[in-house]
C-alpha cells in the first residue's frame, strides 16, 4: 500500500495500526487496521452506536487510544509531543455533527479566529478570506450573523467553511447529512466532492447514509457492533457487488437483502 511518490509524498495519508478504543474497561472497538490514501473519499460506516464517531475522535487526537497508533504520513500522532501534534493537526479540518460553531462569535469571527492564530494576515485580509470561505459554502453575506441566528443546515455549511479555513490536507466529516433534507444532503455531497477535487484534500466521512456512501465514497471501513471490530473495507461499490458478508450486504442494501 505505502508507495513512495517522488520520494517524499507517500500515497498513504492516514494509517491506523492495531487501534483499540476503550472508555475505562469498556472496549468500543478493537484491532482496527486500515489506510486512508491521499485524495480518498474514505467512509467510516456501520450501524448506529457502533463507535464510528469515537473512531473519528481518536483519529483527530481528541481521545487517546487504549492501544495502537495513528500515523499521518510518516508522523506518529499517538506518540508525538504536544508541539508536533499541534503541527500535524493544524493541517486537519473537522466538521462536527452539529456544526459546533463557537456560539459567542459571528460566522466571520469563527473562521477568522483560525486565520488569526495560524497566519500573519491583518484584520481586513482575514475578513476577506472569511467572506470567501463563506461564499464557497453558499453563505455569502452572512458574515456578521451569530450561529444561533441561522438554520441548522446553514450552521452545518458554516461549520464546513470553518473546517476549510486553513486549506487543510484532510477534512473530517461527522455525520454530515444528519438533520438535513434530501436536497441539502445531496448538495452537501456534491460540495464535498467539489472541494476534494479543487483543494486536493483527503476526505474522511463518518456516516450511515447509504446513498452518500455509494455516490461519493471510494474507500471505506465497516465497523460491526457485535464483534467490536472492522469486518470489511474497500470501495463501497465493490463491497456492494462482491462482499459475501451478510451484515455488510444488509447495510448496503438498506436491509432489502435479508440475512442469508
Amino acid at each position: 500500500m505505502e508507495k513512495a511518490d517522488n520520494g517524499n509524498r507517500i500515497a498513504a495519508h492516514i494509517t491506523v495500526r492495531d487501534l483499540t478504543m476503550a472508555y475505562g474497561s469498556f472496549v468500543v472497538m478493537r484491532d482496527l487496521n486500515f489506510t486512508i490514501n491521499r485524495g480518498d473519499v474514505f467512509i467510516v460506516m456501520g450501524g448506529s452506536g457502533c463507535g464510528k464517531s469515537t473512531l473519528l475522535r481518536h483519529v483527530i487526537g481528541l481521545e487517546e487510544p487504549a492501544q495502537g497508533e495513528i500515523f499521518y504520513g510518516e508522523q506518529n500522532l499517538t506518540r508525538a509531543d504536544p508541539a508536533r501534534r499541534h503541527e500535524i493537526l493544524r493541517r486537519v479540518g473537522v466538521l462536527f455533527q452539529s456544526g459546533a460553531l463557537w456560539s459567542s462569535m459571528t460566522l466571520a469571527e469563527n473562521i477568522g479566529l483560525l486565520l488569526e492564530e495560524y497566519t500573519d494576515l491583518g484584520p481586513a485580509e482575514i475578513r476577506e478570506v472569511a467572506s470567501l470561505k463563506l461564499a464557497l459554502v453558499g453563505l455569502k453575506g452572512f458574515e456578521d450573523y451569530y450561529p444561533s441566528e441561522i438554520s441548522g443546515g446553514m450552521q452545518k455549511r458554516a461549520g464546513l467553511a470553518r473546517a476549510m479555513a486553513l486549506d487543510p490536507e484532510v477534512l473530517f466529516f461527522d455525520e454530515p447529512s444528519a438533520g438535513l433534507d434530501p436536497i441539502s444532503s445531496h448538495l452537501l455531497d456534491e460540495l464535498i466532492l467539489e472541494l476534494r477535487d479543487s483543494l486536493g484534500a483527503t476526505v474522511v466521512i463518518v456516516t450511515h447514509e447509504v446513498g452518500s456512501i455509494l455516490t461519493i465514497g471510494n474507500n471505506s471501513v465497516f465497523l460491526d457492533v457485535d464483534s467490536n471490530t472492522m469486518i470489511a473495507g474497500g470501495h463501497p461499490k465493490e463491497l456492494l457487488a462482491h462482499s459475501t458478508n451478510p451484515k455488510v450486504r444488509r447495510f448496503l442494501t438498506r436491509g432489502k437483502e435479508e440475512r442469508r
Partner: protein
Amino acid sequence: MASSEVLSFERTGDATVVLRLSGSWSLQGGLPSVAEVEGYVVSAPRPMGISFDTRRLTIWDSSLLTFLSKVAELCQQQRITMDRSGLPSGVRRLLDLAEAVPERKGARKETAAPLLLERVGNTTIATAGSAVEMLAFLGEMTVAFARLLRMKARYRASDLFLLIQECGAQALPIITLISFLVGVILAFVGAVQLKQFGGQIYVADLVGIAMMREMGAMMTAIIMAGRTGAAFAARLGTMKVTQEIDAFTAAGFSALEFLVLPRVVALALMMPLLCLYSDFIGLLGGAAIGVGMLDLSWTTYFQETTRAITLTDTFGGVFKSSVYGVLIALSGCLRGLQCGNSSSAVGDAATSAVVSGIVAIIVACGIFSVAFYILGI
C-alpha cells in the same frame, strides 16, 4: 375492567385452551393480569397449545398487545404452542414486530444493589479519580497562568472585556441589596445587645470591622458563586454538549487558555472592586440603623467607624475577595469542563459548581482566619 367480561377460557377436546377476548380493551381500563392465564396453563391437565377467539372483540389498543406479549412469553417458558391465527391481523403484525429483534445478551442493566463494601470501594475509587482530575486541572491552570504572565496565552481580549462587564458592573444591583441588608442585620443584632450596656455607639465599630474584615468579602463571594460560578459551569457545560470545546481542541486551541483563563482573570480583577463596594454599602446599612434607631448622628457614626477600622482590615478583606474570586471561577469552570453529554448534566454541573465554590470559599475563609491571627493582622 372485570376480567370475566373481556377474557374467558374454554378447553377444547384436543388439549388446547381457547382464550376468548371480547369487549373493548383499552389502556384507560387498566391492564388485565396474566396470572389468571398462568394459573390456567400451569394447572393440570397441562394444555398443549393456546389459541384465540376474538370474534367479539370490539376495540383494542396497546393494553391487548402488552397482555398478549406476556402470554407469548409465558407460552415460551412453558413450551406451549401459541396459535395466533385467531388474532386480528394488526395485532399479529405488531406482535411480530415486537419480537423481530431478540433481546441482546447483556443489554439489560444490573439492577441488584451492590454490597456495602463494593459501594464504599467504588466511591473511594471515584473520589480518588476526581481528586487526580482536580489536581491535573490546577496544574494545567498554573501552566496557563505562567503563559499569561509571559504574554503568550491565547485568548480573545473582547471575551475578557465582556466577562469583566458580566461579572463586574452587572453584579452591582444584587451586591447593593444584599450588602445593605447584611449591614442592617449586623447593626440590629449588635444594637439589641449593646443597648443594655448603653454602648450603642459601638454598633459602628461592630458593623465596620465585621464588614471590612469578613462579611464584605464573604457575602460578595457567595453571591458571585451563585450568580457567576453557576453561569460559568452552565456555559462551559453547554459548549461541551454542543461540541464547541471539541472544536477548540481540534483546532489546536487550549480550552483552558481560551475559556477558563479569561474567566478566572475577570473574576479575580472584579471581586476586589465588588468587595470594596460591598463594604461601603454595608456601612451605609449599619448607619441607617445607627441613625434611624439609635439616635446617633451621621457624623458621630462615621467618626466612630473611621476610628474603628484600619486600612489593614480593609485590604485584608479585599485580598481575600480576590482569592475567593479565583476559587469561584476555577470551580465553576472545572465543573463545566467535567460536564457530561446531556441537558441534565449541564444542570448538575451548575449545581455542583455552586456547592464546590461555596465549600472552597468557606475552607479558604477558615485558613485565612488562622493565618491572619498568627500573622497578627
